[in-house]
């Protein structure tokens, strides 16, 4: 458990240091994930060992957004009188983006003849 956590934190650290050193426009943990993926590809046995720790953390991914969500409640008044319009824009645009991306994916997959499994 502690060993797994050390590996995970180590990759995050490596990611954070790399994006700063190279000035990349992606978050450190995302690059850390890419490094971690490379390790798993090179050492497949490691995936089985760390699987339960990773899946345990991801099963409750929702929990990790709660503190930021509480922060939003305090800042919602900074939107001022625009709050209603902003909310409508966000809801409509989110629906439009989900529909557009899902069809872009499925229609391309269909054109390529790849069946979903």
């Amino acid at each position, binding site marked *: 458990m502690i060993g797994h956590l050390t590996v995970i*934190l180590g*990759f*995050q650290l490596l990611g954070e240091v790399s994006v700063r050193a190279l000035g990349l*426009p*992606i*978050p*450190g*943990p*995302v690059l*850390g*994930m890419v490094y*971690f*993926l490379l390790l*798993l*590809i090179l050492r497949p046995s490691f*995936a089985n060992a*760390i699987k339960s720790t*990773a899946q345990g953390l*991801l*099963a*409750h*991914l*929702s*929990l*990790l*957004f*709660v*503190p*930021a*969500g*509480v922060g*939003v*409640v305090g*800042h*919602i008044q*900074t939107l001022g009188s*625009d709050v209603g319009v*902003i909310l409508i*824009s*966000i*809801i*409509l*645009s*989110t*629906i*439009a*983006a*989900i*529909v*557009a*991306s*899902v069809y*872009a*994916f499925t229609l*391309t*997959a269909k054109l*390529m003849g*790849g069946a*979903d*499994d």
Partner: protein
Amino acid sequence: MTDFQDIWTYLSSEPLLWLTATLAAYIVGDSLFRASGKKAVVNPVLIAVTLLAGALMLTSTPYETYFDGAKFVHFMLGPATVCLAVPLYLNLQKVGKSIIPMLVALIVGPLTAVGTALGIAYAFGIRGEVLLSLAPKSVTAPVAMGISESIGGSPTLTAVMVILTGITGAIVCTPLLNALKITDYRARGFAVGLTSHGIGTARAFQVNETAGTFAGVGMGANALATAILVPLVLTLF
């Protein structure tokens, strides 16, 4: 006997109370979510946030005091992101076979997200800093805040819009995609991660591992796509 005032003084100066409260509020939200038969509308994040915001208001606790405890939970977002490598590795073949559909969606999705958000808000008369802050709303918060700052928006305002977009996507995705009769969980997950970043990805993992994996890839890829697309789309406004 120590009176309540002394106990409260201790509790409000230590991270223990609000850390426990964050976990407890999430457990309430998650239990309601499960009791509902895992309905997307009963979003555990929204329930926990509502409970905690209410508690902070009732006890006149400032957010800084709350975050002193909650930061331990917030910190785990980084390690959790790194952990996305595990389901990605386990589903690598499936992801590899979907590269082309993902690339097409990666152009269409962020373009739609940025274009419609700016278009709709502009039509309603939103201008300036608020409009600019809205552009990167579908991207994971740290990247969105960086994009916002670089184009003249307000990072704080963007963070608020990012979270609202995440919760919206997590709530609407399942009923919306069911209504469209989309049964391909690669496409469903990817679309939700692309549009609603981490909160959408969390929802996708509640549905199944394929959806969660593709959502994680969508979230990561969109961080890069939107950083490139936003300055291009803004030249239209």
